[in-house]
């Protein structure tokens, strides 16, 4: 039995039955991480992981049966775990040590997970390739010369290479779904407000969500059950009841909506044929596929690249050389502390987005850009609600095509931003979206399809994903 090939659900079962110990399981995954260090997916293996596994074995022997009892998990480097470094892929925070647990960390630990380490990411989650990390590029698990996607590229690569069965990432505009697609695994962005962001370093607070990577749909659903639910420390976290996501419902009568605008946007792209194949596959499975419309979806990318940098510029103002570890040694005045610490601590992409954010927020432009983008957000929400009147789930490609080669994007940043064209809408409207692996590109690398659900209806997209898995 190859332990690292097991799903989280299987690991828990085997540990609870005594077939495996948590220590033995964690040792196997740690070996797998060490074997794959060249991919630079994991920035740090926590030195207490084995000790925590031994403690867990004792706890299980005493009757503990948590939903993740003994399951090894890796977290993205922007999620706080008390006492551990949390660097957000940034030089600015390279020595920042978390002083408390994020709510998601607490929930993982309460259900018996063992956190193995922290995964590489684009600096402050800004990027689509993990090339923007201050701690080196992460490589694609299938083709070493390509990117794993981003910003949660380390988490996606870790799951794909069996370094852990489940990993946490975060999403602001596709940072879980896009790397999931590039790495051939499942990646969920839950509804806005489904999972607490307390203790998760903020990028754009009206869009950010914690997301889940897994190789099996059961693992993804189980993890959402553990993480979801209200939190008094995050007022944006919904009080809406948490469903039994692992109890899949019958999906055969679901109506699947294909937005006409998406068909237009995929024309000539690598994803076009694969998306058409997916639609045919659903029809062959007996599902009803209906045309729907999100008329202004082509405005989503511009909307996102106004709202997200605006919020990032405000959120990252806290990194000022006073509170968070980094202070330039030559700065003499307070203004110099701000400017010099930020200038030496932040990478190029982070600076670019702060500048863009302050541009759209500055007087004279605020109404034309920021307020207009907020109004378009309202428009897109209305259009999605309208589309959901005639379908249960919408589908769209996750990415333009296969993972691109490391260093291949032109210097014009907008060319890289276009990578997010299919993913940003779910963040803007707050709906859940799950990227499932489906099909291959011209180099036989994985492609993904998004199952885009109604707000707080993760259960339906999980059920559809399960149905699809069974029909393949």
């Amino acid at each position: 039995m190859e332990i690292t090939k097991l799903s989280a659900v299987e690991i828990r079962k085997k540990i609870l039955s005594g077939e495996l110990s948590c220590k033995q399981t964690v040792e196997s995954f740690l070996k797998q991480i060490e074997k794959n260090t060249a991919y630079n997916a994991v920035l740090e293996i926590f030195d207490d992981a084995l000790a925590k596994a031994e403690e867990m074995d004792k706890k299980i022997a005493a009757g503990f049966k948590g939903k993740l009892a003994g399951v090894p998990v890796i977290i993205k480097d922007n999620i706080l775990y008390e006492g551990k470094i949390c660097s957000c892929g940034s030089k600015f925070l390279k020595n920042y040590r978390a002083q408390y647990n994020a709510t998601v960390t607490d929930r993982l630990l309460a259900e018996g997970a063992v956190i193995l380490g922290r995964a590489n990411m684009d600096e402050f989650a800004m990027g689509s390739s993990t090339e923007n990390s201050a701690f080196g590029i992460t490589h694609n698990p299938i083709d070493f010369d390509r990117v794993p996607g981003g910003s949660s590229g380390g988490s996606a690569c870790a799951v794909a290479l069996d370094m852990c069965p489940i990993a946490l990432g975060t999403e602001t505009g596709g940072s879980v779904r896009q790397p999931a697609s590039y790495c051939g695994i499942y990646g969920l962005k839950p509804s806005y407000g489904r999972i607490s962001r307390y203790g998760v370093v903020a990028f754009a607070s009206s869009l950010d969500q914690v997301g889940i990577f897994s190789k099996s749909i059961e693992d993804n659903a189980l993890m959402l059950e553990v993480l979801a639910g209200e939190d008094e420390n995050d007022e944006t976290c919904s009080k809406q009841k948490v469903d039994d996501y692992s109890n899949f419902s019958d999906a055969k009568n679901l109506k699947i909506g294909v937005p006409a605008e998406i068909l237009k946007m995929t024309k000539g792209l690598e994803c076009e044929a694969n998306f058409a194949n997916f639609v045919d596959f659903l029809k062959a499975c007996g599902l009803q596929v209906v045309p729907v419309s999100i008329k202004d979806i082509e405005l989503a990318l511009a909307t996102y690249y106004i709202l997200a940098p605006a919020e990032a510029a405000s959120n990252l103002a806290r990194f000022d050389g006073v509170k968070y570890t980094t202070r330039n040694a030559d700065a003499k005045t307070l203004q110099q502390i701000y400017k010099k610490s930020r200038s030496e601590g932040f990478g190029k992409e982070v600076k670019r987005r702060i500048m863009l954010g302050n541009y759209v927020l500055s007087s004279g432009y605020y109404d034309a850009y920021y307020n207009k983008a907020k109004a378009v957000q309202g428009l897109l929400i209305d259009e999605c609600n309208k589309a959901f009147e005639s379908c249960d789930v919408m589908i769209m490609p996750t990415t333009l095509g296969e993972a691109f080669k490391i260093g291949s994007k032109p210097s014009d940043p907008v060319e890289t931003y276009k990578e997010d064209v299919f993913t940003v809408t779910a963040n803007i409207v707050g709906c859940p979206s799950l990227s499932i692996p489906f099909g291959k590109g011209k180099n036989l690398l994985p492609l993904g399809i998004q199952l885009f659900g109604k707000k707080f209806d993760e259960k339906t997209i999980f059920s559809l994903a399960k149905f699809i898995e069974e029909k393949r």
Partner: protein
Amino acid sequence: MELSEIKHLAELSKLEFSQTELEAFASDFASLVSLADNIKNADVKGKRVLQSIKLGDLRKDETKKSLPCKVILANAPLAKKDSFVVPRVVE
């Protein structure tokens, strides 16, 4: 975009750039602004601006237990007597 405008944005952003970096930013910005400009074509007549949080949903404004000073200051580059230390800012 004029270089002077980029310099103004850098000041607002509390960032410093070399002349070469500023010039590179000016070229990036033309492209970024043209992406953002797509929003200008949107017809949003009658649409209200969305609020992310409904104020009615917020918890009561009550004092609650918070992290101790020592913990808050643990990551400060310079701290003394329960305070962050910065250079004198008043004349």
